[in-house]
């Protein structure tokens, strides 16, 4: 007779309790040297409660199953040339932004959680972080593998990790993760597991993947939802760490709240790229950024922080501003890319009439009033052969690294660009918002070291002074950027689909010195 199977609670306890030991050759503080320097006080790691009680054998079994399902879809996708079934090749540009901007973050997260698994002294937290570290590596790998099929047919996806480390718009997601990774372990986990994964990640994956489904991209839906199935576990880790920290010691509360404020704003700024993708880059959009924000932030985070108020935690600072900006964000970010698309490795273009009407409908308070006139003007200019490309280099926010294009929405002056300035050691540092300024002022010694792409170009560190030199240093090829209309991808798409060639000629940016 086989022994009766242990119940889930017991199995999990055996995996995560009593496996550690008190070191004798070295001081415990030396072995876990990262655990104390942030001022966080842990009195008893045994109080750690794991919401998902996954044992190692269950973990491997389910992860293997997920990969098997994913690879079956990827195989049949490639076999059937299913890239030809997406709504339009302009959709692929969302995938370019994804592999350049998001996939390298998965790899960064893998490294970050590996460090946490080593540095936390509680076994429950070690195991959760170890599993997450492996998950994140799986995400990076499956994303690269899935998108490699698109890379055979479309431009801009050939060297995402190199680009991620150098390119101006990719320094936005990169600098956020660098910021978290260069912090202590508790700040890292509060940032990535809680502020990003629990509070905001639904805004990245759910509309993105639903958008992929809506645009006929089965491969992306599958890798996205496969990654997201791990994400649910990561989100519960984020919630658990917050509750654990504030329950361990009252001194932890103000530290944790400060991190929530900071990383909410950091992560929110990164998601500006997602807002553009959702509203402007998907030929068919299932949901607007504003709608997604209302469901996944206003409603969901509202309920979450209501729940957390018993621990003394409140909503992140400037969340009201982010909500007010939800009606402006995608239009402003897209406007920045319209100016600089000649220096990017994806294509965009003016929204179609159908898309313009959709934007009017989804943004009744802002689109017709503020953003339609600008697009109409740009359309007129294009018709006259005067497509506007911005040949200057923009001023960047010292913290989020986004070109200064956000406006004073919270001050009811939505057409006035917001500038903030701080003085530190006799120098001026510019930020795009009160949120970014607060972050700078709190740790100026950290942010004065920011690697700002524009400054680096001016300092001569980016391959040269002319745009083609810089593009080469980014590993961009001439056909990677610019307007979608007349692009190499559009031409190739029409050929692959056997459609008649369009006679559109691309607008060529005039090469000027930087």
């Amino acid at each position, binding site marked *: 007779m086989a022994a009766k199977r242990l119940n889930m609670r017991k199995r999990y306890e055996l995996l995560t309790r009593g496996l550690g030991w008190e070191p004798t050759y070295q001081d415990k503080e030396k072995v876990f040297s990262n655990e104390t320097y942030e001022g966080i006080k842990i009195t008893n790691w045994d109080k750690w409660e794991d919401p998902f009680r996954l044992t190692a054998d269950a973990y491997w079994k389910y992860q293997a*199953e997920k990969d098997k399902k994913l690879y079956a879809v990827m195989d049949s996708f490639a076999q059937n040339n299913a890239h030809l079934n997406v709504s339009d090749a302009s959709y692929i540009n969302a995938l370019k932004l994804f592999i350049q901007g998001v996939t390298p973050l998965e790899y960064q997260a893998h490294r970050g959680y590996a460090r946490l698994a080593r540095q936390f002294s509680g076994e429950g937290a070690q195991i959760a972080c170890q599993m997450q570290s492996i998950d994140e590596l799986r995400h990076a790998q499956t994303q690269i593998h899935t998108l490699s099929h698109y890379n055979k047919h479309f431009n801009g996806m050939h060297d995402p990790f190199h680009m991620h480390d150098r390119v101006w718009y990719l320094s936005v997601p990169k600098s956020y993760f660098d910021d978290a990774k260069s912090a202590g372990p508790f700040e890292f986990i509060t940032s990535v597991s809680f502020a990003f994964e629990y509070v905001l990640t639904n805004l990245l994956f759910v509309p993105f993947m639903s958008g992929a489904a809506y645009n006929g991209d089965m491969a992306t839906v599958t890798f996205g939802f496969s990654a997201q199935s791990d994400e649910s576990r990561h989100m519960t880790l984020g919630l658990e760490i917050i509750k654990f920290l504030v329950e361990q010691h009252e001194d932890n509360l103000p530290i944790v709240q400060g991190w929530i404020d900071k990383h909410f704003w950091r992560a929110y700024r990164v998601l500006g790229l997602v807002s553009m993708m959702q509203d402007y880059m998907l030929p068919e959009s299932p949901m607007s950024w504003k709608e997604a924000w209302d469901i996944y932030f206003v409603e969901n985070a509202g309920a979450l922080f209501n729940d957390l108020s018993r621990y003394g935690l409140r909503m992140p600072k400037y969340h009201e501003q982010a909500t007010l900006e939800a009606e402006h964000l995608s239009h402003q970010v897209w406007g920045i890319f319209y100016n600089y698309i000649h220096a990017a490795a994806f294509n965009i273009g003016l929204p179609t009439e159908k898309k313009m009407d959709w934007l009017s409908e989804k943004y009744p308070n802002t689109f017709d009033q503020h953003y339609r006139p600008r697009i109409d003007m740009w359309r007129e200019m294009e018709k006259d052969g005067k497509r506007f490309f911005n040949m200057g280099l923009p001023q960047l926010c010292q913290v989020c690294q986004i070109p200064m294009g956000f406006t004073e929405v919270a001050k009811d002056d939505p057409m006035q660009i917001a500038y903030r300035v701080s003085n530190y050691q006799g120098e001026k540092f510019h930020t795009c918002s009160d949120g970014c300024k607060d972050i700078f002022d709190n740790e100026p010694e950290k942010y004065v070291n920011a690697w700002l792409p524009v400054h680096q170009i001016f300092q001569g560190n980016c391959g040269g002074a002319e745009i083609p030199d810089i593009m080469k240093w980014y590993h961009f090829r001439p056909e990677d950027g610019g307007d979608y209309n007349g692009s190499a991808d559009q031409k190739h798409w029409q050929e692959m689909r056997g459609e008649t060639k369009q006679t559109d000629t691309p607008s060529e940016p005039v090469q000027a010195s930087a």
Partner: protein
Amino acid sequence: MSENKVFMIFQDTADARPFVDAFEQENPEASLDYQPGMVRIDAMGELSISQAVVSELAGRDVDLQELHLTLVSLSGNVDEDDEYFKITRQ
């Protein structure tokens, strides 16, 4: 109104169906929203399923942790054991 809302999102696939159907059956107050590729289940305060019902719907003995295979997202506090899975918010 949304003070204590909880939700579960699953992929809209055959593997997820016994779980989604169990949530629907065992939580009469819950509302289901089908979006491209996924289905979202919302309720106030609590959503729960039992191993017995999921197994009955699947026609086989289901380990509730199989929900990891098709879960997309969730919101609320998780409580799980061999016989049940629950997500709550007071």
